[in-house]
């Protein structure tokens, strides 16, 4: 894992790492193109995107609305296929994986934190988390024990029997983080995790995600344009008009400046 906060954008990564699907890379996406629709209405959301993330790294993908960051996250999260290009997650080419293998792959490898928490309304906090483990084939008892442990880690041990509508926005997002970390997924993708939260709660929740991801040795990619949390990243990658934006970012304030240069409205 890269330890220094001085992180380069993808094009400055070591060439050897880029061209060889080495296990050291958690994510290795190359020449990703994503086009929606056909004919005159076709819209190209991503153009020749190269994106690499080392194991254990925490990368924030920043860019203005419509820049393609969520599309890229969807492709990396195996919920959307690229039009062309190669996506390797831990060496596995997922862009051409069979449709029937994708759910198992997502379930085993990826944890998701969504913008609007996306908890199942009918399930308690504990069962929302346990559901992930049970979908991975673990017994109810094991899944519940793990869920209780994760709820304790996010500070909601006493809220395990509450349903989402009985929790505050911050608490729901904490449950969502615990759910994303259930089963220790090696990859966690978070899509605008602070969007629905106030500044303080958003910061707390992201801080929690970062800390727990380190505890669980997960590689994390966070899509955001919330500059208040940039300092928590190991590396910030800019994206604009479907292309990765080059440039070096030094520290938190540097990230903010860099983002402003690329038109993020923060």
């Amino acid at each position, binding site marked *: 894992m890269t330890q220094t906060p001085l992180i380069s954008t993808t094009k400055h990564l070591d060439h050897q790492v880029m061209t060889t699907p080495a*296990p050291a890379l958690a994510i290795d996406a190359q020449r990703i193109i994503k086009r929606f629709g056909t004919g005159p209405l076709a819209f190209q959301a991503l153009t020749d995107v190269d994106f690499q993330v080392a194991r254990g790294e925490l990368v924030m993908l920043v860019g203005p609305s419509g820049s393609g960051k*969520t599309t890229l*996250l*969807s492709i990396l*999260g195996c*919920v*959307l296929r*690229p*039009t*062309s*290009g190669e996506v390797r*997650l*831990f*060496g*596995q*080419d997922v*862009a*051409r*994986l*069979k*449709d*029937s*293998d994708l*759910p*198992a*792959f*997502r*379930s*085993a*490898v990826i944890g*998701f934190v*969504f*913008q*609007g928490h*996306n908890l*199942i*309304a*009918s*399930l308690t906090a504990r*069962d929302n988390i346990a*559901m*992930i483990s*049970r*979908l*991975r*084939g*673990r*017994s*109810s008892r094991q*899944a519940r024990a793990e869920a209780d442990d994760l709820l304790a880690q996010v500070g909601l041990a006493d809220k395990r029997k509450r349903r989402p509508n009985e929790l505050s926005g911050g608490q729901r997002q904490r449950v969502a983080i615990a*759910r994303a970390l259930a089963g220790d997924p*090696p990859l966690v993708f978070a*899509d605008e995790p602070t969007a629905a939260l106030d500044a303080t709660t958003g910061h707390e929740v992201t801080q929690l995600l970062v800390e727990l991801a380190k505890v669980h040795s997960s590689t994390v990619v966070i899509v955001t344009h919330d500059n208040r949390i940039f300092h928590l990243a190991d590396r910030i990658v800019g994206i604009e008009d479907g292309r990765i934006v080059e440039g070096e970012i030094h520290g938190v304030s540097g990230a903010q400046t860099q983002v402003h240069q690329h038109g993020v409205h923060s």
Partner: protein
Amino acid sequence: MNLRRHRIDPTSPIADRLRRARKGMLARTFATIALAFRMMFHDKPKLVGTTLGVVFAVVLSAQQLGILFGLLQKNTMFVDNAQADIWITPPGTNQLQPGKRLSESILVQARTTPGVATAAPLIYGTGSIQRPWGGSEPLTIIGLELPATADTPLLGGPWNIVAGIRETIALPNGIFLEDARREKMGNVNLGSVREVNGYALTAVGFTWGLLPFGPPYSFVEAKLARAMLEVGPEEQHFVLIEVADGFTSDQVAANLQDRLPDTRVMTKATFHDAIVATLLGEQLGITFGTSTAFGLLIGFIIVALSMFSSVLDNLKEFGTLKAIGATNGDLSRLLIVQSILYATLGSFIGLGMVGFAAEGIRSANLAMIVPIELILATPAIMIALCMVASFLALRRVRKLEPGMVFR
């Protein structure tokens, strides 16, 4: 881009993790079932609405079928209870209705056919009983021959006797009447004398519930019936057969048919089925079949729309489940489990209501019959119906892109 799809690389560093994820199908299935329950019972208005849809379908269709079975039973009750193993009827007979009369020689030939223990004539016709204060009430008159010994079955005789004994039918001008029609027949009691088809008859016994689709059954001795219905002394409408020990009904019926080619010989079961088939093939089947089908159709539509709208309401949740690793198979199982639960819940409530209704309306005039076959078949049919009804919802869920959770 090479679109050829390939499987997960077994040498991949995450292959073990994937292998583990694929195991535990049972746990996944239980998780899906548990989730199906939770989602169903969480959305109570939808649960109530969908269940009511099933209840409505069950009540309407089971009640219609119950009444149909009741009506069929009314039409077959005589054949079922006449104690005859075999019926010799005029050719072309499909219903218990008087047709061409059978001659004495048929009765004699039947009595001498191997396997026949008893052959008795049955006179069948309609009449009317005069009320003391005027007016009359129609009757179905059954004329039967009393056997020589008390231990011999009284072929074509009354059953469900609530007053009197069967031997009293042999009393001069004696008649068995239907208890449920006593008032309509002029408050008739045991010993009451009433005019029937111009004959002064004495009520010597009463039956209960012997009300066919037409006028109630009444029983008199064969000679009296012949006189009342103007049937010649060597004529009868039907010949009823009791099969001797060691013979089967089918065997003896075949023998009789060979010997009596100008008649239609039917076993009790065959005659029963012929009556049912004739009634179902005519108006009764069409009327009740249509209303039953409408009941099922309405239930189907309610369940289909309700489940589809439930999926639409919870699209984000289904998308999330797909994104976090639930397969189309998992979600299909979830919806199928829900459809089974709706069907089972609705069937039990509906059948309970039909059961209460059946008890409530049970009378000699109208019996709603809910046989065990109907009770067992209803949940099975409703489960099949609800599973088919969930097709729209299933289709929507299967087409759902997990990527929608990021939009």
